[in-house]
């Protein structure tokens, strides 16, 4: 009975946004004009429906601690030994994910109604957004890898469509291409992982597959780490995760992805899609745990990305780019936690990050909305009194991001640091701690520059009501959302018991961001942020950091330009020259042979005579 009920709810969760998107699409295709109000109502109601269903699922499962539920709706394809079905798998992890996706998704839909009200492509926006939510839900609910891949590519496509949403601008379309192609590289690695896993284990069902992996592949000790099957599979999956989550070395698409409308940046490029990589690794934690090398790789990638992105965020001028780099950096934290084996801490941070980063992006969107599409923070200033709501939002968002005590971000980040110490990964712990310092510094740099100091530009609009509602709810979530979901520990079979908190360490983690803010305030008061850099070396460093450690330039000269050059040089298809050569040859021989057929009677008779003489001499002499 409960099974039936749950399966229907889950189906509704996925199908509602999908149906809404399909309906809106068909309406657009047959040129029926629909008022924006109706479009908005339909789109938002669909997500609200999903969110309500998720709440009902929560209620249903409230008293069960350790649950896992799977249900197969329909067969997809079945060829010989290969089969895949449309099935869902619900456990603590996917429950957290669908809650984030539908909940934050709903708030962002609501916000978009106000934000996009004047856009002429209102309907198209909501089609894409609904489609995205549906694909994301498929991704997190899938019980087999092929269906997960369906959602995985689906969210990639929606991300592409939404980054290039304002398609009149050439640059937006380029950014969209970059995002899609870079993630596609990771996705292809992931597809190969799918093939490898299927060949080795004979199934694509995620749970079954991991059980078999555990039985088949014994745990390796980290000394003898070699590239065995499990490591290869894990690394290939990791490549997919890295592409989607904007981690090193496939991180450089994410800052450019900010070309999309701001709600999109909030939903896709902060709260949900980019964390799909974290979800993937967490989902395959049994597999990853089998390979110390892969775990090491996850942690290292996370740590390096964390620092690179955080330092790049230090010098950005575009408010959205600061937040984009911050997202990359925070996901680096999650990868670090995953690599340390602290899966539930990573997912916990994913959740709180979804709240406060969505808040920050939406607040930034409101800021841009009110400031005539101004993105540069140095053109703003002193907005504290002009835009109080946005100021409050930014304050709590930055506070949570900087992990100030009692904010949601504090609990999750503190948990990660704690776990790193528990696992005796002191190097990574230091990196994470210094990352926390930089994070607090750049987030409050943003906050001070925009809201303090002298006023440079006056806002000309007020955020719409729907935007205000969404922002307020997210503020509350950012402050009080730091409650670790109870189901997580069971999924990862971690002990619920919290390890002993060393008071000195806790104080240290509190002191680090606070000191960073103090330093930041000092620098801001000295007006050092906006000053022209005199020294060449410093300017070089600044430009290096500003470009996100020069990865774009590196890839351009390493891959993009050689690729274009190579393909361009063979534009005419050199194989064709073989065939044109063949036709040239026959034309040439035609030319020479046709001179014989010149129509000259005497030439013909002469050749006749000559031939007869030659033939006769041959016959006579032989």
């Amino acid at each position, binding site marked *: 009975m409960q099974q039936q009920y749950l399966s229907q709810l889950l189906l509704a969760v996925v199908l509602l946004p999908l149906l809404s998107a399909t309906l809106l699409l068909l309406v657009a295709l047959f040129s029926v004009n629909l008022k924006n109000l109706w479009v908005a109502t339909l789109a938002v109601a669909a997500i609200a429906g999903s969110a309500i269903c998720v709440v009902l699922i929560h209620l249903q499962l409230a008293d069960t601690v350790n649950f896992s539920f799977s249900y197969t709706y329909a067969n997809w394809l079945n060829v010989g030994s290969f089969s895949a079905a449309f099935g869902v798998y619900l456990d603590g992890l996917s429950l957290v994910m669908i809650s984030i996706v539908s909940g934050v998704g709903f708030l962002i839909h609501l916000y978009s109604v106000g934000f996009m009200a004047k856009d002429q492509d209102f309907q198209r926006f909501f089609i894409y957004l609904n489609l995205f939510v549906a694909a994301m839900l498929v991704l997190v609910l899938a019980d087999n890898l092929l269906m997960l891949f369906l959602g995985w590519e689906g969210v990639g496509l929606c991300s592409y469509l939404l980054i290039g949403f304002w398609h009149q601008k050439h640059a937006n379309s380029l950014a969209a291409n970059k995002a899609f192609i870079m993630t596609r590289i990771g996705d292809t690695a992931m597809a190969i992982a799918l093939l490898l896993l299927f060949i080795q284990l004979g199934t694509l069902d995620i749970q079954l597959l991991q059980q078999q992996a555990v039985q088949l592949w014994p745990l390796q000790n980290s000394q003898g780490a070699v590239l065995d099957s499990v490591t290869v599979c894990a690394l290939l999956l990791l490549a997919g995760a890295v592409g989607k989550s904007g981690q090193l070395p496939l991180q450089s698409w994410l800052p450019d992805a900010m070309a999309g409308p701001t709600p999109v940046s909030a939903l896709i490029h902060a709260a949900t899609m980019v964390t799909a990589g974290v979800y993937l690794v967490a989902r395959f934690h049994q597999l990853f745990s089998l390979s110390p090398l892969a775990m090491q790789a996850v942690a290292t990638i996370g740590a390096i990305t964390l620092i690179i992105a955080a330092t790049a965020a230090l010098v950005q001028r575009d408010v959205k780019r600061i937040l984009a780099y911050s997202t990359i950096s925070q996901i680096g934290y999650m990868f670090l936690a995953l690599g340390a084996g602290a899966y539930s801490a990573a997912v916990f941070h994913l959740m709180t990050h979804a709240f406060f980063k969505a808040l920050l992006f939406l607040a930034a969107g409101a800021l841009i909305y009110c400031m005539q599409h101004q993105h540069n923070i140095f053109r703003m200033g002193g907005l504290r009194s002009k835009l109080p709501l946005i100021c409050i939002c930014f304050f709590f968002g930055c506070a949570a991001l900087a992990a100030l005590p009692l904010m949601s971000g504090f609990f999750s980040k503190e948990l990660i640091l704690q776990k790193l110490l528990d696992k005796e990964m002191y190097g990574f712990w230091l990196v994470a701690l210094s990352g926390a310092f930089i994070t607090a510094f750049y987030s409050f740099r943003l906050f001070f520059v925009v809201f303090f100091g002298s006023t440079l530009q006056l806002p000309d609009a007020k955020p719409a009501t729907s935007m205000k509602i969404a922002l307020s709810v997210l503020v509350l979530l950012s402050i009080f959302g730091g409650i670790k979901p109870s189901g997580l520990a069971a999924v990862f079979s971690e002990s619920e018991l919290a390890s002993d908190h060393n008071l000195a360490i806790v104080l240290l983690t509190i002191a680090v961001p606070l000191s960073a803010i103090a330093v930041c305030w000092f620098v801001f008061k000295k007006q050092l942020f906006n000053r022209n850099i005199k020294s060449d070396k410093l300017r070089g460093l600044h430009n290096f950091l500003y470009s996100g450690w020069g990865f774009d330039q590196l890839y351009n000269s390493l891959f993009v330009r050689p690729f274009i050059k190579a393909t361009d040089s063979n534009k005419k298809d050199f194989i064709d020259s073989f065939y044109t050569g063949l036709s040239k040859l026959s034309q040439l021989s035609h030319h020479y042979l046709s001179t014989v057929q*010149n*129509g*000259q*009677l*005497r030439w013909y*008779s*002469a050749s006749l*005579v000559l031939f007869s003489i030659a033939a006769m001499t041959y016959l006579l002499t032989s």
Partner: protein
Amino acid sequence: MIPLEQVLFFSIALFAIGVFGVLVRRNLLFILISIEIMLNAVAVLFVAAGNYHNNADGQIMYLLILTLAASEVAVGLGLVIQMYRRTLSLDVDQLASMNEQ
């Protein structure tokens, strides 16, 4: 009785003259005449060879060639006249092309 060698020599000479005529003359009429000479060279050879073998076949062949030459001249001259009417020229070099220009 004329020895066969002499007839043979005469016939080859005659044939060579004919071939030479076909090759060097440009006028269609002269080419036709040269062809006739070649035919006659062969005919003479037939008669002589027939005589040498004591066989009447050579003379029969001569008669055949005679009629053949007559009809050939008739058709050939007819064509030459037509050609002349169309092109006002009997130069074979100018008649190299099949289509009329």
